[in-house]
């Protein structure tokens, strides 16, 4: 592994600039990446699915899918990858960087937008730019899937109510024949406007290596 590190020292530098991670963080993530992929260059869905810690996550599927989503690569591509390399992996991870004291307001705003878009992409599974009711129901259903007896019914009712809420907030003067197709990104942003994202949607990427405390694989 030492060889890999020296070989990609330059590469880390470049990645650090693109993603905003520090070189140490990238090194850590790279280690983890190799661990997950079994020292391959790319990672597939099966690799991620076999992480034991993730097994109980109710939205596991969506999380994994997000890593293979081309929309989360800061490009304008649609569709999804079969396998991703480390760079893509890092790009997805970079959505969860916490702001630092040096982050300016504009940057924070941009980061927030990114995070919202990430969430939106997670829900908008078919990539048509709208979260339809079907998609939304699925989200809620999966969210509730681990909480015991609450079944699909509850999930449906809640998703419906939530959808109605979005509709009524964003299209207050809908005519009787109008039809709300789905939540667009703008509407989505509107709904989550008051929610403090930066304090919640972030992961503390460690600077020090935690290889020795890895559980699971």
């Amino acid at each position, binding site marked *: 592994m030492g060889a890999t590190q020296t070989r990609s020292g330059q590469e880390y530098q470049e990645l650090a600039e693109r993603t905003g991670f520090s070189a140490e963080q990238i090194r850590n993530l790279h280690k*983890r990446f190799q*661990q*997950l992929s079994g020292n391959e260059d790319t990672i597939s869905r099966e690799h*991620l699915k076999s*992480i034991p*810690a*993730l097994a109980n*996550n*109710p*939205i596991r599927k*969506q*999380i994994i899918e997000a890593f293979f989503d081309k929309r989360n690569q800061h490009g304008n591509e649609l569709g999804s990858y079969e396998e991703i390399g480390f760079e893509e992996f890092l790009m997805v*991870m970079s959505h969860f960087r*916490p702001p630092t*004291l040096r982050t300016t307001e504009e940057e924070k705003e941009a980061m927030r937008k990114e995070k919202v878009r990430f*969430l939106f992409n*997670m829900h908008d599974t078919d990539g048509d730019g709208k979260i*339809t*009711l*079907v998609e939304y129901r699925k*989200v*809620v259903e999966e*969210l*509730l899937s681990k*909480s*015991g*007896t*609450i*079944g*699909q*019914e*509850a999930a*449906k009712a*809640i998703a*419906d*109510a*939530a959808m*109605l*809420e979005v509709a009524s907030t964003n299209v207050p003067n*809908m005519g*009787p*024949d109008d*039809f*709300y*197709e789905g939540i667009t990104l703008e509407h989505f942003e509107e*709904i*989550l406007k*008051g*929610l*403090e994202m930066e*304090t*919640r*949607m*972030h*992961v503390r*990427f460690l600077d020090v290596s*935690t290889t020795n*405390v*890895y559980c*699971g694989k």
Partner: protein
Amino acid sequence: MGGGINGVICMTFVLFLCCTTGICNPNKPTPTDSTNLETAILLPDDPEDPQAYPEEEKGDNLPVFTMDYTRIQIPFEFTLWILLASFSKIGFHVYQKITIWIPESCLLIGIGLIVGGIMYSVKEEPPAVLTSNVFFLYMLPPIVLDSGYFMPTRPFFENVGTVVWYAVVGTLWNSIGIGLSLFAICQFEVFDLQNINLQENLLFATIISAVDPVAALNIFDDVGVNEQIHIVIFGEGLFNDAVTVVLYSMFAFVADMPAIDSVDVFLGVARFFVVGVGGVLLGLLFGFVAAFTSRFTNKVWEIEPLFVFMYSYLAYLVAELFAISSIMAIITCAITMKYYVEENVSQRSCTTIRHVVKMLATVSETLIFFFLGVVTITTEHEWNWAYILFTLLFAFLWRGVGILVLTQIVNPFRTIQFTVKDQFGLAYGGLRGAICFALAFTLEDNINRKNLFVTASIALILFTVFVQGISIRPIVEYIKIRRTNKDLNTINVEIHTRTMEHLICGVEDLCGQWGHYYWKDKFKKFNDRILRRILLRDTRSESSIVSLYKKLELQNAIELLDTTMGDISAAPSVVSLQDELMEASRPKKKFLTGDIRKMHDILSKNMYKIRQRTTAFRGKNTLQDNNHAREILMRRHASIRRSLHGQSFREQPVQNVSKSLKYYSLQPGGNLDSAFPLRRRSRGELLKDHLQTFGASPRSSSRSLIPMTTLKTIKEQGSSGAPSSLSVHPLEPSSGEHHLDEGFSGPSLRGRKAPVATPRRHSSNRDDEDEDNGFSENQAAGAEQPPPPQGWVPEVRDPGANEAGNPLLRQSAHGSQRSWRT
């Protein structure tokens, strides 16, 4: 300004009080005195003119009228004090603007000063309330219980490290820093302070390093500062009380000792941990016992709330018994049991608990600040400029530097770091309050300059409360501390908060890191698997999304009560309780009336099937029959309100509702009268359960595989119309109802009867409820709907064109129709 009314109230009461306390010295309870007193009480406005009218009593005959004031003196005076304090509180809120600019504690102290001045002028002793025992056994527990019980759990645990860091290390820092600095000052001969030794200085420094968060929190709440600062101030205030009390008892012990060994220092440190950790463990123990007890209290609902108080108080007392941190014990107990107890007890008990906790705490706090004012005047002071000024200076300085240094240390460990502004807010929010005051008065008499310490403590409290307390709001607003929109009570926000949590948890797992969410996840699993099974009566776990959903529904129900039934006198009280339950502070109230109202209307559409399912599932308990009546009633209110309010559910022209129309809604007489109070009583249980059992609602839209694209996710007329007809139908149709429904077009009304089938079935054949609902639905609906299915189907489609909103209910109509066909 604005003091007119409260001034009058207070002065009247002050006079009143002075008479009672002034005249009734317990050491001379002669008959004359009591008669004088009686006069004074009877004529509070005219105390200077004692008319000894009951002279006749002095005869030998059987007294017609007697008095025994000494017997009731203590509770009587106590009651009067509380009343006086409460009246002044009312006074402040008559004119809202005062409390915005001047914290309530300032005003209370101010009134206390006035009362103290009057008492001083009539040479009256201050009330004997402030002994160490009274304070620590009776006045402190309610305050701490309140803080613990209403502690915002999620942010607290997210910031627990920082909170403990500030509370423990910060307090130590302050105590030792201030103590040593003051000791240094004492070495100067000019100040005439040489007889204060190091131990005493440290003891004093400990007293004044406890931060009281109340004043700062009120202001921070109002301006809506970000969650982190809020919880850090809150938690710090809470836990440094505990630290301070421990330190105080240690230093008080040490102050008596002639010399200190190094062993004692280690013992002190060890004791510190024993006391703190012991308190936590004891609290956990009592918390779990309380939670476990509440599993079985549902049959004795009258005393249900009592258990919460008894157990927390017991935790407190037992901790006191073993001289471990009672504050920690009661806080931990409250945090532990809250979650489980609130799920076990009925909604009504829950409200009661919250209300009483708040009430007791408010009374205690009000009294403490009030007494602070009184005692400031009446106590003996020793004024030493140097010592007091240096105390103020050091307290301010060490707090500022402490926060700065501690933040530098803790910041690298935080994901969201504190900015300079945040730090300033933290430092400046460090007002001193009740604990400081109480500890100062519990100083032993054998301390040389006790009076000086008391004076200095009071000076510090007054300085911080008045100067910092009043200036903090403008400053916080001026420097624009990071703010946040907290507690958005919408379903979407809840859903996405949860999504984010899971997402972050998942990403942490992906990175192979154990972050905060990792532990949260672990605890949740442990909780679900073991704790909930043991402690909860009804162990079906429930997602926070669902509970929010229920909460909004509950609110909706209450809102319905409030708007249509405004004339019924009992309704407002229910509503106000509910306000308390929602901890409605000023900004939130704004929110309630606005967006939430919209939500209610939307959510109400989904209310029906949920609740109905509950009764079916729960079998034959005593509430069952009422549930239906209540159910129907609630639906009817919804419908009535909608039909009355017509077009938009955005604005609510309540004024347009004519009384006669309102009473139409009440027409069905007996049914309503009996159902109404009943509903209010057990609405809690009802709403509490209805979602959990809601799994396979008969009118399931899961069967309704309508093409989703036809969903017109709501609106207006149509959407409000559907539930209206739905709910009106199940009652015996009366002329009143028809009248109300005139607003709707015939065909659509007809078509919308489809979903009605189920409610009616439930109200009519209750006995069948435990049977398979899915099966009975079609049957029952078919039986009750005179037109055969074939004739009925087109009707549903018929209004399709003008199915304005095509609400979600519509789909279920489609659904059931479809399932019939197959």
